[in-house]
C-alpha cells in the first residue's frame, strides 16, 4: 500500500525519477543560497533576480528556439548584468542596493517584454518560461547537477567570508578587500541557481524552492550549518511529496512542490522550537538554549 503510493510511481516511470533527481539537485544547490539570502535580508532579491533572468531567457529562446544553451546563457547574461550594474550603482552612488536592483530588474523585464512582442512570435511564451519538471531531458539534468556541484563548491570555499558578511559586513569591509568580491560571487550564485531552477520549475517557481525552505528552517535551527541542512531536507521532502501529489491527484507539478514547501513553512511557523508561534507563547525555560 505504502509501497504503491510512494515508490511505485518512481519505479514505473522514468520521467518521475528524472523529475525527482532534478528537484533534489535544485534542493541541494539553491536552498543554501536561499539561506544566505535570508540571513542577509535579501530574500526579495531572489524574486527580483528571477524577473531579471526571464527576459534574457526569452531573448535566448527567440534567437535559438528551445535550446537549453541559448536560454541558459541568455538568462545568465541578463541576471549578471542586472546584478553587476545594481552593485556598481550601489557602490559608487548614494542609491541603496534595493532601489538600484529594483530599477535594473524592471528595466530588464520591460526590455525583454518589448523584444518578445516586437519579434511578433505568438507562441505562448509562458509555455517556454514555465519549464516543467516533468520534461527534464538528459541535457537539462546534467546542467542542473553541474550548477548544483559548482554552487556547493563555491559556497564551501566562500563559507567563512559569507558568514562574516552576514554577521558583520562593516568588519569584513574594514579588514579585507574581499567584501565586494564575495558579494558579487554570491549574487552570481543566486543567478546561476535561478537559471538552473527555471529549466525545471520555471523562473518564478525556482525562487520558491530557494526561499521557502530557508524560511522554514529558520524556525528549527540556530546555527548556519543547521539552517542549511534543515533547509535542504525541507526542500527535498517538499519535492518528493509535491511530485507524488502531482502524480496521484493530477496537480500541476511545479506549483504542487512549492505549495508543499509553503505548508512546511506554515508548520514551522507554528511549531518550530526556535521562535515559532507556539514556542513563543509557551513560558520560556532558560536552562535550555
Amino acid at each position: 500500500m505504502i509501497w504503491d503510493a510512494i515508490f511505485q510511481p518512481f519505479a514505473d516511470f522514468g520521467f518521475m525519477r528524472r523529475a525527482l533527481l532534478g528537484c533534489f539537485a535544485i534542493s541541494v544547490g539553491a536552498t543554501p543560497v536561499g539561506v544566505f539570502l535570508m540571513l542577509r535580508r535579501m530574500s526579495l532579491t531572489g524574486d527580483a533576480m528571477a524577473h531579471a533572468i526571464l527576459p534574457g531567457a526569452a531573448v535566448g529562446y527567440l534567437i535559438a528556439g528551445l535550446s537549453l544553451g541559448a536560454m541558459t546563457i541568455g538568462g545568465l547574461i541578463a541576471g549578471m548584468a542586472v546584478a553587476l550594474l545594481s552593485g556598481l550603482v550601489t557602490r559608487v552612488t548614494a542609491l541603496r542596493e534595493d532601489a538600484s536592483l529594483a530599477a535594473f530588474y524592471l528595466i530588464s523585464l520591460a526590455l525583454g517584454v518589448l523584444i518578445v512582442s516586437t519579434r511578433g512570435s505568438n507562441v505562448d511564451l509562458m509555455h517556454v518560461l514555465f519549464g516543467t519538471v516533468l520534461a527534464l531531458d538528459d541535457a537539462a539534468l546534467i546542467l542542473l547537477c553541474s550548477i548544483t556541484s559548482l554552487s556547493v563548491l563555491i559556497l564551501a570555499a566562500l563559507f567563512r567570508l559569507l558568514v562574516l558578511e552576514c554577521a558583520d559586513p562593516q568588519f569584513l569591509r574594514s579588514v579585507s578587500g574581499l567584501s565586494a568580491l564575495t558579494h558579487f560571487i554570491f549574487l552570481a550564485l543566486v543567478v546561476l541557481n535561478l537559471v538552473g531552477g527555471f529549466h525545471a520549475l520555471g523562473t518564478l517557481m525556482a525562487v520558491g524552492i530557494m526561499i521557502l525552505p530557508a524560511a522554514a528552517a529558520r524556525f528549527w535551527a540556530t546555527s548556519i550549518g543547521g539552517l542549511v541542512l534543515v533547509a535542504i531536507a525541507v526542500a527535498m521532502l517538499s519535492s518528493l511529496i509535491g511530485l507524488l501529489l502531482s502524480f496521484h491527484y493530477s496537480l500541476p507539478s511545479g506549483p504542487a512542490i512549492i505549495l508543499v514547501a509553503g505548508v512546511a513553512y506554515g508548520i514551522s511557523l507554528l511549531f518550530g522550537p526556535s521562535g515559532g508561534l507556539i514556542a513563543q507563547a509557551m513560558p520560556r525555560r532558560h536552562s535550555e538554549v
Partner: protein
Amino acid sequence: MKTKRMLLKSAAVILALTVAGPAAAQANKPIPVVATFSILGDMVERIGGEHVAVVTLVGPDGDAHVYQPTPADARAVNKAKVLVVNGLEFEGWLDRLIDASDFNGMRVKATDGIEPIPFEEGADHAKHDDDEKHKDHGKQDEHAKDDDHGAFDPHAWQSLSNAVVYVDNITATLSKADSSNAATYYMNRAAYVAEIQALDADIRAIVAKLPADRRTVVTSHDAFQYFGRDYGLTFLAPQGLSTESAVSAKDIAHLIEQIREQRIPAVFMENISDPRLLKQIANETRAAIGGTLYPGALSAPNGPARTYLRMMRHNATALARALGS
C-alpha cells in the same frame, strides 16, 4: 501551366473591367482584407491574387488560441473591407477586437456550411477540451466565458473537403465586396479547388496503404479530429499537454501507459507547442518521434508548410512515414 493560368486571369480581368465599366477605376486598387490566421490568409491570397491586400493577424508559427491582438491589428481590421474568420469559437479574442476597431466591412465565417465535429467524441477528451477552453478564455476573454465555450472542434481546415467550403465562402464574399473582379475570383477558385481535390486523392492513396493496427498517433494538442475522420486515423491528445504550464505527473503517466498498452507507434510534435515533454514521453515508450505536424499555423516562408496545401501534404506524409515504417 502557370502562364496559362495567368493568361486566363488577365483575360478575366479584361472581361471584368469591360463588364463593370463604372467600377473600373476602383478595380486597380487591391481591396484590403484581414484574415485572422495564416491558413485563412493563404487561402485569401490564392483566391484574390493581386486584387486583394491581405493582412494576417496571427502569422506563421503563431498560436491563434492564445493570441493577444495589438493596436496595429485593430487598425488593419478598421480599414478592411472583408474580414475572414474561422468561426466555431476558434478566435476567442475576435469579438473584442471587432468592437475595438469599429469594423464595418463584410465578415465571412469560413466554416459556414461544414459539418462540425462536436467535442464530445470520445468521452475522455470531452472534459479536457472543456476545461481547456475555460482556461483559455479566462486568460483572454473574461466576458465570453459563459456563452462561448466551443461545443465544436474548430480545427476544421484539417479536412480538405472542408477546405473547399472555406474557399467557396471566401470566394463568395470577396466577389460580393469587389464585384468587378468576381470573375477572377471564381476562376482562381476553380483552379484552387482542383488542386485541393487532387491533394485529397493523393492523401487518400497514401493513407490507404497503412495497416489497420497502425493508425493511432499521439499529438500534443487535439487538432486533428477532422483529419482523422476523413482518413480513418485516430489522434490521441493527452489531457493537459496543450497547456504546458499546468501539466500534472498523472496526465503524463496515463499517456505513457496508454502508449505502452496500445503499442502506439509514433508521437508527433507541433509547430505551435512545446516539444520537450513529448520528447521525454517518446524516450520513455517505444514510440518514435514522427516529426513535426502543423495543426493550426503555417510555417515560416522557408519551412515545409508555407502554404495550406503544402501543410496538408507535409502532415500526411509525415504521418504515413511514421506509421508505415
